[in-house]
C-alpha cells in the first residue's frame, strides 16, 4: 500500500508543479481567514469583544489560517465531476479504492501550502503585540493530533457530500450549502467564543468545532484543563468514527446503483 501511495503522491506532485499558479490562487482563497481577521480587528479596535482583544484575534486567525490550510479538502468536487462525467468507471476497474488517490493528492498539496502559509503566519504572530500562544510539548502534540482529527472530519464529510452525486445531478448546491454551514460553525467566520453560550454549548456536540476551532484553541490557550482536552478529543474521535462508518456504508449502496454514464 505504501508503494501505491508513493506512486499517487509522485503524480500529485507532478500535477501540482504543473499547476503552480493555480495552487497560489487556491491558497489565497483561504484568505477569507485574513479578511475575517481584518473585520474582527476593526470591531475590537477600541477594546475587547467577548473577551477577545485585537491580539487574541490575530492569534486565533493566524493559527486558524494554518489549520484551515492543513485541512483544505476539495474531494467533494472531484467526486462530483468524476461521477457526472463517467470518469469514475476507469477508476473502479483498478484493484484499489479511488479514495486512496484523493488522500495522497491531498497530502501532497498540503505540503506545498504549509511552506507558504506557515512562515507568513509565524511572522505576523511575532510582530503583533498581544498575540500570545501557549507553546508547550503538550499543546504542540495535542495540536498535531487535533489537526489530524480535523483533517479526517473534513475529508470524510466532504467525501460523503460528494457521494450525493451518485443520486443527484444537483450536487454543487449541496456542496456549497455544506461549505457555508462549515464556514460558520467551524469557527472561520467568527471564533466560536463569539457565539452566545447556549449556541456554543449546543455546537460542542456537533462535528464542526472540531474541524478548526478546537485545534486552534489548543494553541491560543482557550483549552485550559486536561479534562476539557480529553472530552473534546473524545467527541472528535467519535465523530470521525461515525463519518467513517457512514462513508463505507454509503459507498457500498452507491456502487450498487451506479450506472456508468455515457458509452
Amino acid at each position, binding site marked *: 500500500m505504501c*508503494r*501505491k501511495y*508513493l*506512486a*499517487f503522491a*509522485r*503524480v500529485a506532485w*507532478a*500535477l501540482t508543479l*504543473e499547476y503552480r499558479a493555480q495552487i497560489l490562487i487556491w491558497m489565497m482563497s483561504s484568505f477569507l481567514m485574513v479578511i475575517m481577521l481584518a473585520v474582527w480587528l476593526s470591531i475590537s479596535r477600541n477594546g475587547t469583544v467577548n473577551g477577545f482583544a485585537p491580539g487574541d484575534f490575530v492569534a486565533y486567525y493566524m493559527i486558524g489560517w494554518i489549520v484551515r490550510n492543513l485541512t483544505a479538502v476539495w474531494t467533494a468536487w472531484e467526486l462530483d465531476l468524476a461521477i457526472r462525467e*463517467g*470518469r469514475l*468507471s*476507469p477508476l*473502479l*476497474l*483498478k*484493484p*484499489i479504492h479511488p479514495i486512496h488517490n484523493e488522500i495522497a493528492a491531498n497530502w501532497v498539496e498540503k505540503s506545498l501550502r504549509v511552506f507558504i502559509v506557515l512562515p507568513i503566519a509565524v511572522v505576523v504572530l511575532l510582530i503583533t503585540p498581544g498575540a500570545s500562544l501557549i507553546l508547550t510539548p503538550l499543546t504542540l502534540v495535542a495540536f498535531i493530533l487535533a489537526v489530524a482529527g480535523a483533517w479526517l472530519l473534513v475529508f470524510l464529510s466532504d467525501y460523503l457530500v460528494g457521494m450525493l452525486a451518485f443520486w443527484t445531478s444537483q450536487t454543487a448546491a449541496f456542496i456549497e450549502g455544506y461549505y457555508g454551514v462549515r464556514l460558520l460553525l467551524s469557527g472561520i467566520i467568527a471564533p466560536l467564543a463569539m457565539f452566545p453560550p447556549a449556541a456554543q454549548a449546543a455546537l460542542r456536540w456537533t462535528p464542526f468545532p472540531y474541524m478548526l476551532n478546537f485545534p486552534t484553541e489548543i494553541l491560543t490557550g482557550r483549552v485550559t484543563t486536561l479534562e476539557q482536552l480529553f472530552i473534546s478529543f473524545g467527541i472528535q474521535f467519535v465523530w470521525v468514527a461515525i463519518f467513517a462508518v457512514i462513508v463505507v456504508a454509503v459507498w457500498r449502496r452507491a*456502487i*450498487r446503483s*451506479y*450506472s*456508468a454514464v*455515457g*458509452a
Partner: protein
Amino acid sequence: MPAQIHVDQLSKHYQVHEKEPGLAGSLRSFVARKYRTVKAVDGVSFDIGAGEMIGFLGPNGAGKTTTLKVLSGLLYPTSGVATVMGFTPNKREAAYLKQFTLVMGQKQQLLWDLPAVETFLVNQAIYEIPRAEFDATVKELDQLLDLGPLLKKQVRKLSLGERMKCELAAALLHRPKILFLDEPTIGLDVTMQVRIRDFIGAYNQRYGATIILTSHYMADVTALCDRIVVIDKGKVLYDGNFRELIERIAPYKILRLQFEQPAACEQLASYGTVESCEGLTAVLHVPRAQATEAAARLLNHREIKIDDINFEDPPVEDVIREVFSGKVNPLVSA
C-alpha cells in the same frame, strides 16, 4: 471444459426519467417525474472459452457496451448470471480486477497533463507488477505498438491515434488474460486501425488472451473474429461463425458483368437474379454453389459478349444491416 466467460439470461434494465421538451415539460417534470424502463440487455446468453476472440456486433444502443460493463463489474445485473473465470464481476475482488482489462475507445485512463509513462508507473504500483516484469512488458508493448517517443510526451499533445496506442499499452501492463475492447478503433484513420487490429491479433496469439471486441467497423471484426455475437435491442440475434452467417443470410455471390455491346437483359435471368442491367453493365446475384458454373457459361455464351467479369462477396455491412433490420432471422437459412 467449463467456459471461461459464462453469461446466462443476463438482463440489465435502467430507469430513465423522461422529460417533455419546453418550459411546460420542465415544470411538469419538476412536480411529477415520469420514468421509463430501458432494457439495455434483455436475456443475453453465451459462453466463451479461454483464448477465443469474439466480435460483438450491433447498432448503437444494442447493449454491447452494457454487456461488457457487466462483465467488468461496473454494472450490477438486474437479473441473470454473468461469471468470468469463476468470479462474479460485480464483487470487484482484487484477484479478478488484476486478470482483465476494459478499454473503452471513448474513455481514457491516461493522465491528461502528464506523459503516458507516468500513468504506466502508477499502474505498475497499483497492480503490484515487479520491476523486471514491468520493464519487459513495456518493451514488448513498445515493439508491438511502436510507441517510441510517444511515452515521454504529454498525453494532451498526442494525436488521437497516438493516444489510443498509449491507452492500449496502459491497459495491458498487467498482462491481463481477458480483454474487453469497446470500440478501440473509433475515430482512427485507416492506417492506425490496421495497426491496432494487428496488435490485437498479435496479443491474442502471443498471450492466448480471451478477447471480446465490439466495433462498428466491419473490417475490425472480419479481420480478427471467427465467431461473432450479433446483439440488437438487448437480445442476441446470432452467435456463431462469421462466414456461416454471411452464407446463411446472403447465400449468393455477386457477379459484375461488363459487356462489349449492350446485352439482352432477359437472357441473364436464367443465370441468377438480375439486380441491375443497364447499358454495358449488369449485376447478377447467383447462388454460391452455382456461381462458377454460371460465370463459365456466360463467358462461353454465343450472343452475350463479356468484356470483364468480377466475383464479389455480398458486402458484410449489407448483410449485417439486414440482420439488424429484423427482415431476416439469422437463425433460419435464407
